[in-house]
């Protein structure tokens, strides 16, 4: 790619896709956490020690991870189709999109994974 090439919006979009999933998941988990605490979901047992609150939060985490994984797969496929292999930064846009998708998936697990073990409501 030379600098003067026009990059269509659809190619740019895959660069952002992973982190859009991350940000939507972040906002969703944060709001559902507060809503759940306000409605007392933490005190409602679903099965044994598992509360409704924990189940909903972990469910959202799994959905977010699945969505992030889907973006990784699509980005990888688009990169292969464009001739990218290994860890070479060519073709640049597709490779950067694929790496960003992995980074977003890792971030989702890192920043939202603690819903698995931290105290949900105070």
């Amino acid at each position, binding site marked *: 790619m030379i600098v003067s090439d026009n990059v269509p919006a659809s190619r740019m979009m895959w660069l952002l896709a992973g982190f859009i999933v991350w940000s939507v998941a972040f906002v969703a988990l944060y709001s559902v956490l507060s809503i759940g605490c306000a409605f007392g979901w933490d005190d409602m047992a679903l099965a044994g020690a598992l509360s409704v609150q924990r189940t909903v939060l972990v469910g959202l985490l799994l959905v977010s991870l699945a969505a992030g994984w889907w973006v990784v797969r699509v980005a990888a496929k688009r990169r292969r189709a464009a001739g990218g292999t290994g860890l070479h930064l060519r073709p640049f846009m597709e490779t950067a999109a694929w790496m960003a998708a992995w980074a977003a998936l890792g971030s989702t697990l*890192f920043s939202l994974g*603690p819903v698995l073990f*931290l*105290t949900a409501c*105070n």
Partner: protein
Amino acid sequence: MATLWWIMFWGAALLFAMVGALYALAWWRPAMMARLSVGQWLVGGGLVMPIVVLTGLVTAAFVLGERLIARPLEDPPLRVYAQAHQWDWRFGYDDSGSTTRELHIPAGQPVDVVVTTADVIHSFWVPRLAGKIDAVPGHENVVRIEADRPGSYRGVCAEFCGNGHTTMRFTVVAHAPEDYDNARETAFAEASR
């Protein structure tokens, strides 16, 4: 809470020293630095190092944060009340209708502070005793504090609440358990004057 501050301080000091050492090496021994490729520097310094540092800090914050949560104890701790208003604090106690201008607590035992507000959002923060907790209209938030020894501990409002925010300070006075009742009576008398 001071623990987290010290962890961050020494962590930052260590990183500062490390970056300084790398800079000195790049200056005095460029051949040594050139042994690693650009890619290795990028992945090592830009990916591996931040992940290690962030994971360490996040873990410390999680562990200390969980400890601040006012969980029910077998022997229920003393409850006191902190009410914020623009721009001062009032402190109340279960066994008395009077309030004090400073928060009086016994030293060496956990105390649950029920934080409320009469107007806008404020935040109760005594850096040496616990983390911040917001005072939210219509809510009762509880933070567990504990002073290891008698003394005065300074506190501030940690959420911007208007013109008087910066002067909205208060003091938590921890007394030896045997002095606690007397000290509080004196404080009630002072507050009603």
